[in-house]
Every structure is written in C-alpha cells, then in structure tokens.
C-alpha cells in the first residue's frame, strides 16, 4: 500500500466514522460531542498520519494539494468578511462592538507581550523575528471561536442576554486577529521588490488589490448569474486572491476578508454569497485540521516553555480582556466579570492564521506557532465547553 493510498483510506474511514458517530453523540453528551464536532479527531488523525508518526501524509503530498489549502485559508477569510456587514452590526446594541474590540485588543496585547517576553527570555534572542512570532501568536490567541457558544445554543437551547452578547463577540472577534495577521505578513514581508520599500507599502498594495477584487466580485455577483455560476465565480476569485496573496507573501485570509467585507456591504450579493460559502466551510475546515496535524512538529524543550507561556498568556489575556470589557463597557445589563471564561473557545480562524504563517515561514518559527495552536485547540475547546455550559446554567440561560 502506498503512503497516499493509506492516508486516503484512513481519512475516509475517519470521516465516515465521525459523521456516523457525531449525530448519535450530540443528544446524549454535549461535552463528548464537542470533541467530535469541533474536529479534534481530524487534528489527531493528521498528527498520526503526518511525517512524525506514520509519514502517510508527507511534505510531497502537501505540496501537491497546496491549491486546496490556499482555497481553505481564503475561504475562511471570506466567510469572516461576509459577516462584517455594517448595517447588521449596527442593529446590535451600540456598545457590543466596543465590548468585543476592547477584550480582543487587550487579549492581543497580553498574549503578544507575554509571548515576546517569553521568547526573549527563553531563547535569549530578540529582534524582528521574535517580534513577528509574538505578533502572530497574539493574532492567533486573541480570537474566540464561535463553535462552543453555537453548540450551547443549538444543543442545549441556551438563550438570553448573555448568550446573545457571547454570540456577537465570538462572531466578530476574529476581525482583529485576521487584521493583525495581515499587518504582520506585510510588515515582515521577506520579498525584495524595486518598487516597494516598506511593510506599510506592502500592506497598502494588499489592501488595494483586495478592494479592487472585492468591487470586481460585487459587480460579478450583481450581473444576474445563477447560484451555480456565482459559486464558480466565488471559487475562482478566492483561489485567485489567495494565490496572489501567496505570490506577494501577504496573508490570503486577510485579503479575502477584505473582499468579503466589500461584498457584505451590498445586501443582495451578501445574502447570495453567505448561502454559498457556508456549504464549503466545514469540508475545508476539516481538511485544514488534518493538514495542520500532519504539519505539526512536536515541540522541542525550549519551545515547550514558550508554548506554555502562550497558553497561560491566552488564558490571562481572555480573562483580563473580558474583565475590563465587563467592568468598563456598559452593554445594557450586568455582565459577569468572569465572562473571559466563556471566551476561551479556540478554532477555525486561529488555526488558519497559524497555518498561513507555517506555509509562509516554515522552519522552527512556523512549527512553534502551529504547535501552540494545536495544543491550544485541544486544551481550550474542552475548557471553553465546560465553562460555557456551567456558567450559562448558573446565569439561568440554560434550563
């Protein structure tokens, strides 16, 4: 049996098993089903199939499937951008956006700062590379995944003001993470060009390209094509923009988020695109999980310390960010100071940012970020589920 055949066989069996098991677990035990639904088995599967364990999924295979990976990253960015429709955001209480941004920015500062300090202290080096890794870790860590609160609503019927706020926060939280990742990829762009001399020029080039392609997509979607045609155009555009991102060493997630944001401001295309993008979200995320697992290089000793520092920093960052927002930003009802416990969920956007960095940088820096993210997903997803279900029950929003 060839490695790729073995990989595909195992992947298919895992896929069928998870799809068979998940619906049967959902009703009985939300915590157990959380593990399955959030995709941790696919992550573990990737680790097992990767070069470090069985080498079924070698680097060669990864390179061959790179267009699919770029599509997955771009798609995640687009999905996020599509949700950022200003008119919809304005419908929520005024301070929700401020609440989200403050806790996210505080978390970013705590995680980035603490990681920077840990990197310098444990590795004994400073400079641009350390700053870049700290910035990426901050971007990865400040994002809250909406999956845990979504599951609380879907399976346990959670409802109430706090649940509503949590849905809003986890829905928009990724914006800052993606933005910081985009800025990071531009500021630390390693490409040499005779016409671009600074990171901010790379950033502006990326923004310009994404805005242009966003307007282009908007006009395409307004041209009266059918749903199938729109799907094709969207697919082509995401691959094109992601490819351009990879070509220019700019985050494809960020570029596609900007494309999505442009489209989102127009009512009819945004609805069409939303309908189309959600059908592809899960398959691409699962694929990303397997690849991330396969690319994972288990950490060596100095990295274990940095990863531990990152995990601690994320816990602290989210708790402090949540506490500051709850304390200082009035949202129309008393928000529990421990809301940070409910914002620990870790998932799609964070993984995509980490994966993107690994593809761009590779080496030990990329490996470190992937390691931190994978361990973070495994730890925080369960912790977040446990906290969310417990605290929402205490707050009387789960009966």
């Amino acid at each position: 049996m060839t490695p790729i055949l073995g990989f595909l066989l195992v992947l298919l069996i895992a896929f069928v098993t998870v799809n068979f098991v998940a619906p049967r677990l959902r009703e009985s035990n939300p915590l157990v089903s959380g593990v399955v639904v959030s995709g941790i088995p696919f992550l573990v599967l990737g680790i097992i199939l990767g070069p470090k364990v069985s080498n079924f999924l070698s680097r060669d295979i990864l390179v061959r499937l790179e267009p699919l990976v770029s599509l997955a990253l771009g798609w995640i960015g687009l999905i996020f951008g599509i949700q950022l429709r200003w008119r919809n955001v304005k419908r929520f209480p005024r301070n929700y956006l401020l609440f989200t941004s403050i806790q996210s920015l505080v978390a970013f500062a705590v995680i980035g700062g603490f990681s920077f300090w840990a990197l310098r202290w444990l590795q004994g080096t400073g400079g641009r590379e350390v700053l870049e890794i700290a910035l990426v870790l901050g971007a990865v860590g400040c994002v809250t995944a909406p999956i845990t609160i979504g599951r609380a609503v879907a399976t346990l019927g959670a409802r109430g003001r706090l649940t509503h706020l949590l849905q809003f926060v986890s829905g928009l939280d990724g914006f800052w993470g993606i933005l910081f990742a985009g800025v990071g990829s531009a500021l630390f762009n390693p490409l040499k060009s005779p016409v671009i001399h600074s990171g901010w020029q790379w950033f502006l080039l990326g923004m310009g390209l994404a805005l242009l392609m966003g307007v282009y997509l908007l006009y395409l979607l307004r041209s009266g094509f059918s749903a199938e045609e729109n799907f094709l155009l969207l697919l082509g555009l995401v691959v094109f923009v992601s490819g351009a991102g990879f070509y220019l060493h700019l985050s494809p997630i960020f570029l596609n988020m900007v494309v999505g944001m442009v489209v989102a401001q127009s009512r009819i295309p945004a609805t069409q695109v939303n309908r189309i993008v959600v059908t592809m979200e899960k398959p691409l995320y699962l694929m990303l999980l397997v690849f991330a697992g396969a690319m994972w290089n288990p950490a060596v000793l100095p990295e274990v310390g940095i990863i531990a520092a990152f995990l601690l920093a994320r816990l602290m960052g989210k708790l402090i960010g949540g506490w500051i927002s709850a304390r200082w930003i009035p949202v129309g009802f008393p928000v529990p100071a421990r809301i940070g416990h409910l914002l620990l969920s870790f998932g799609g956007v964070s993984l995509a940012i980490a994966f993107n960095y690994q593809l761009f940088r590779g080496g030990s820096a990329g490996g470190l970020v992937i390691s931190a993210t994978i361990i973070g997903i495994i730890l925080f997803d369960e912790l977040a589920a446990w906290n969310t279900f417990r605290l929402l029950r205490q707050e009387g929003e789960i009966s």
Partner: protein
Amino acid sequence: MVRLLVFIALPLLVARLLDPWLGLENPLPGSDAMVALGFTTICGYLAGRLLGHFSLPRITGYLLAGIVFGPHLMNFLSTTVVEELQLIDRIALSLIALTAGGELRLSQLRSQMKTLGGMLAGLILICLLGFMLLLMLVAPFTPGLEALPLVQQLGVAALMGVVAISASPATTIAVITETRARGPFTSLTLSLTVVLDIVVVLLFALVLGLARGFFHPTGALQLGTLLQAVQEIFFSLGVGTLLGYGIALYLKAIQRDVFLFIMGSILLSMEVSHLLHLELILVFIAAGFWVENFTPLGERLIEEIERYSLPVYVIFFAIAGASLNLPLLAGVWLLTVVLVSGRFAFHWLGTWLGGRLSAAPRLHRRFSWMALSGQAGITLGLAILIEQALGEPTGRLVKNLLIGGVAANQILGPVLYRWALVRAGEVSELPD
C-alpha cells in the same frame, strides 16, 4: 457582451501587470499555479458565456480560454502550471465520468440495444477499414511514412484507424449537462460514447499487438497483451461497482456531507486505479451506473455532483485547451485536415449504415456521428502508447498526427454535438 469582456480583462490585467511591475524574486513555489487556476476558472467561464452569445457551446469557450491562456499563446497557464494542475484535472475527469455513469439507464440501454449494436458494428467496420484505406492513400505523400514497407504502413494505418474510432465521453456528458438535453437521441449517443470507450481499449490492445509484430519481429502478438486489456477492463468495472456500492451505502446510512465523501472516494479510487493500472474513466462510469441502476439513489448522487459541476467542467476543459499542442498542429495541418475530415466521414457512414441495418430512426442515423466527433484524454493516452510501441521515428510521427487531430476534433466536437442535440429537439434549456 462588452461587460463580459471587461470582466475577463480585469483579472488578466491584474495578473499580467503585477508581476513585471513588482519585479519579485523567489515568490512562494506553486503560488503562480494558484493565481492561474483562479484566473482560469473565472475567465474560462466568462469566455464560455461569451461564446454562448454566438450559439456555441460553453465548453468550446473553456477550451479556447485554455488555448489562449496556455503555454503556446499567452503562457499564463505555462507547461509547469498545467503539470501542477494535473491532480485537479484528474479529479474533474473522475467527477465527469461519475456523472456519465449516473446518466446511463439500464432500461434505455435495453430498449436501444439493437441500434447500439448496429451502430457499434458499423463504426468499427467502416471507420477502421475506411481510415486504414485513407492512410494507405496518403502514406506515399507523407514524409516519414512513405519509406516504410507496406506491411508496416498497414500496421500504422490499423492503429490510427482504431484511435480514429475513439470518442470523448467527457465532452459528450459536458455538452449534455450544459444544454440539459433529455431524450432518446441523447441517451443513445451517451451510451454509444461510453460503450465505444470500452470497445476501443480492447480493440487497441489487439491491433497494437499485431502492429508491434510488423515493426519488431520478436514482439509479435501475444495473448497476454490482449488478456491484460480484458483484465484491466474487468477490474475497472469491478472496482467501479464496489465504489458505487460504497457511495450508495453512504447515501443511505449517513447522508451528511455527501460531496465531501464523494471527493474522498474519488481520491482513493484514483490511487487504487493508478496502482492496479485501471482505466480511470471506466471505474467512475461503472460506479455511477451502479448507483443509478441498482439503487434508488441515482438522482440524489447526480444532484450532489451537479451542484458543483460547473467549476469541474471549466477547469477540466480549460486545462485540456492549455494542453493542446498548437505548434504541432501547425506543422501537420494539411494532413490533419484530411484525416479529421476522413474521420468525420467514416463516423457518419458507420453510424448511418449501422443505424439503417438496425432500423434506427432517421434522425439517429443522421446525427449520431456528431456525438463521437470530440476526442480527448483517452486518445492522447493511446497516442503515447503507440509512440512507445513503434519507437522512433515512426512512433513519434504517428503520435504527432494523432495529437494534431485531437486538437481539431476537440474544438469542433462540442459545436457539432450541441448542434445535433438542438436538431434532435432534446435540448430543454439553452443557456444564453
């Protein structure tokens, strides 16, 4: 139309201007393939729409876009990029074959058995003999063939005759999907193309064994060669049936994320086919056929595939267009014109005569040949086998002639078939 042109021009400009302007060194490997794939998907489709305004099939537009953006004109889809996209190309072909199998209905096959048999017999007899005769006539004027002994000329003629019979199920199903054609003519032509695929593989193994004997006395026909071909077909159908059974089981028991499961199954089956030297297209036709005819889930399967079929067709035919070797066609254009015209004439005569003997309706007799006019992957595969079997320089000459013919047939084929479907009155919804 102007708007479509503008839509095509913008990504083209972005992609064309960005690179020289920035003057980048060492961008990430594979990123240019991604840009090209995204660009081809959008612009290929829009080119197809553009051609729709001239009552031409969209897949011709995808092909032409591939040719224009391909290595011989704009070099946007360079030879390296086309090679990098081979995996995606094969996935697309597998999905198309699965659809083709799902569209074949046993009840219709049974009712058309007589016509199908008659046309197949007519095609094999007339096309093979006619093409051999034509080749023998042009051989004295063809540099490279004129010096061959008569028996070797006969060998080459027989091989090219078999390849001339072959058609492209992918083209047929793509035109059917695009025009949403339904009816007895559509069903007959699809069945004819698919069955022809199997017959050609068998016939080719037989004739190749004979022809090899004319060129290398030690390599005369061995029963093993023929048995191997039979075995390949048998295993392809077997693996395909197993795959169909698996898909049906999943559709029945789980029902979630069906397309993702199909994609996984396709990748797995592609790898199995590669390992066991199976005919990829037959594997997936058999799988689709099984689900359609032996389970009540055929409609569901086709529905799931068709939801995502548009990008599949655009990418497949654009890559096919980019792979066409135009300089080669330019080098042998006169002979290509003769051979392509001859092929069309013998296809027409074969299906007409076969149809007449089997008392097929007049319309079927007149237009069935048009469904067979397109040629693609399988023909290219056979051309490479001929080159390997006959060796230099004859093998290369034959391969070049065949590839030149494929380029012409692939452009003309969809146009003719679409026209035939319209004439048959089975096109339910014409785009544009």
